[in-house]
């Protein structure tokens, strides 16, 4: 069988050597067309590294990732509720290596864009012709008074990067008494996984219901005034768990003093502008920004937090031959308030575009016609899921949000509006699992 895409994509070739358009000739002679270093082996980085090799095996690809095992954030809220074992979310890097990607487990500490080199904590040095950054997010603990990295790892887990903190949060939930209060503090957007905090609220409520903690309260203290898939979440919360001041789940908007500014870790008190809320479990998601390696390069120019990139290629606007993908970048139709959501699906879409654009550039060909898509499933109970889809194209060098190819699962059906039959929610809860297995395979397999 012909190798993926290559057949359609790459054709019988003359001897066009290589990195003709790239500004530096780090690639050594004939054999290797160009050297690409990818920093960060999450959904974005793993996908970029793999697709570079699939699209053009003449490119040498090195992926530098701190950890040897990746834990998927998507569906990790089900680990908190006990619906899923964390192992089902974990994957290593053997699959990527099979595509000829050189995987280095180390931490990138410095990047020199003039010398085009990357230095690691382990003292290794890598020279690149092009660099792809997908370092995820960096948490700004200082934004919430009283919070620190140490507290997040010991008593106040954010669990906004799946791993040990996810398991800690799960244990705290298990230890919470009936009548206990679980606080989720949501930072001002944009943040990683826009529907994530609200899915978490539902999973925590599901746990409480399953374990007879019917008097539990899940309080969402939000710095924002609305949220992703709001009508779908509110409908499900109401039907499944009770929603509002008398229900199990309650949401306090930013306008209603929902923004948490300070926390007292000993009394587990969250202080908002005017009020205070005591919790038995306090899950503060700190504000975050582009990963440190990208910030250190001065690329986080958007609101001093996120990296701006070119719509046709994902190349950083501020730095030639450096591409920023995944949660670290900002993109989408900002003028109409339709920014790219920070999701794994989106990170992979960006990764594939960056890889295709880079391969075109290396081979001296015109850039491919860009298209970016997202789908994000939320699972609020084992048999209740829904989704949002997004489509973006690029017109006149700008991202355009395509409304006809975007939207949430139906809240009602038909005119006059009727309730959506349960089968729709059941199907999307099942599809979420199929999505997870496929994205893990597509990125890491």
């Amino acid at each position: 069988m012909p190798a993926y895409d290559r057949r359609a994509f790459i054709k019988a070739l003359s001897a066009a050597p290589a990195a003709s358009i790239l500004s530096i000739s780090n690639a050594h002679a004939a054999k290797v067309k160009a050297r690409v270093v990818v920093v960060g082996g999450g959904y974005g980085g793993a996908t970029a590294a793999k697709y570079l090799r699939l699209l053009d095996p003449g490119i040498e690809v090195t992926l530098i990732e701190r950890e040897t095992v990746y834990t998927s954030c998507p569906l990790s809220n089900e680990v908190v509720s006990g619906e899923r074992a964390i192992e089902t979310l974990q994957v290593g890097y053997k699959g990527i290596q099979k595509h000829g990607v050189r995987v280095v487990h180390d931490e990138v500490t410095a990047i020199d864009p003039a010398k085009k080199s990357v230095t690691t904590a382990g003292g290794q040095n890598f020279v690149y012709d092009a660099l792809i950054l997908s370092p995820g997010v960096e948490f700004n603990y200082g934004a919430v008074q009283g919070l620190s990295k140490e507290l997040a790892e010991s008593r106040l887990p954010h669990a906004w990067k799946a791993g040990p903190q996810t398991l800690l949060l799960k244990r705290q939930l298990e230890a919470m008494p009936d009548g206990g209060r679980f606080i989720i503090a949501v930072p001002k957007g944009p943040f990683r996984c826009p529907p994530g905090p609200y899915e978490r609220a539902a999973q925590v409520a599901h746990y409480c219901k399953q374990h007879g903690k019917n008097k539990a309260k899940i309080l969402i203290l939000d710095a924002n005034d609305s949220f992703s898939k709001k009508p779908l979440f509110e409908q499900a919360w109401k039907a499944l768990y009770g929603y509002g001041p008398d229900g199990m789940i309650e949401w306090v908007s930013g306008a209603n003093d929902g923004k948490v500014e300070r926390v007292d870790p000993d009394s587990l008190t969250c202080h908002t502008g005017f009020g205070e809320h005591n919790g038995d479990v306090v899950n503060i998601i700190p504000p975050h920004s582009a990963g440190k390696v990208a910030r250190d390069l001065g690329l986080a120019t958007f609101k001093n937090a996120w990296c701006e990139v070119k719509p046709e290629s994902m190349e950083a606007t501020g730095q030639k031959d450096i591409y920023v993908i995944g949660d670290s970048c900002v993109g989408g139709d900002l003028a109409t308030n339709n920014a790219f959501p920070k999701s794994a699906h989106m990170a992979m879409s960006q990764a594939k575009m960056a890889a295709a654009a880079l391969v075109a550039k290396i081979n001296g060909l015109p850039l491919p016609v860009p298209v970016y898509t997202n789908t994000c499933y939320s699972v609020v109970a084992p048999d209740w899921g829904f989704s949002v889809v997004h489509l973006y194209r690029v017109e006149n060098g700008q991202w355009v949000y395509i409304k006809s190819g975007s939207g949430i699962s139906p809240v009602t059906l038909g005119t006059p509006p009727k309730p959506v039959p349960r089968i729709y929610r059941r199907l999307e809860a099942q599809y979420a699992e199929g999505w997870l297995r496929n994205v893990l395979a597509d990125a890491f397999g």
Partner: protein
Amino acid sequence: MRKGVMAVVLFWAAGTTMADINVDTLARTCNNCHGLNGVSAGATMPSIGGLPKGYLSKIMKEWKYDKRAAATMNRIVKGFSDDEIDALAAYFSKRRWLPVAQKTSAVQLKLGKSVIRENCEDCHGTYGNDPDIDAPRIDGQSTEYMALELEKYRDEAFDMPHRKMKKTIRRLKDGEVTPVVDYYGAQKR
């Protein structure tokens, strides 16, 4: 690993004659859910690589024009032009159908086979690899996906257009659905 490297050059927009459609780029967005080459790695998502062009294009247009219900796909395809849908259908029909044989018990296989003899093989073939012109291959198709499709046919509230499929599937007894999809899902020929 590098063989052929020196003998290739990129050829953009291959597989389509429309200048502004890059079907490779579009198709790559499908891999997130349907797998590389349309071979699904998740039991609830269908493989689509190697299904007939006409079938793929028909299904997607039915979703686009609200002639067929779906949980997710109908929203995804609405952003694509008919030409893009045709290009995607052509692209995936040119991949190879790779049945993913999923394990099941001998008891299920036996029961499944007898139900299929009676109800399905006329249109899908005994092994699911020899379908009528308007039906897709289902040998080695994701079992949980097939079970969910049959649930759609059985649920009054879900609008599936094919009348004969609907009639056949509604005739099945509750316990017959799982063995049937397990049987087809276990095939690899």
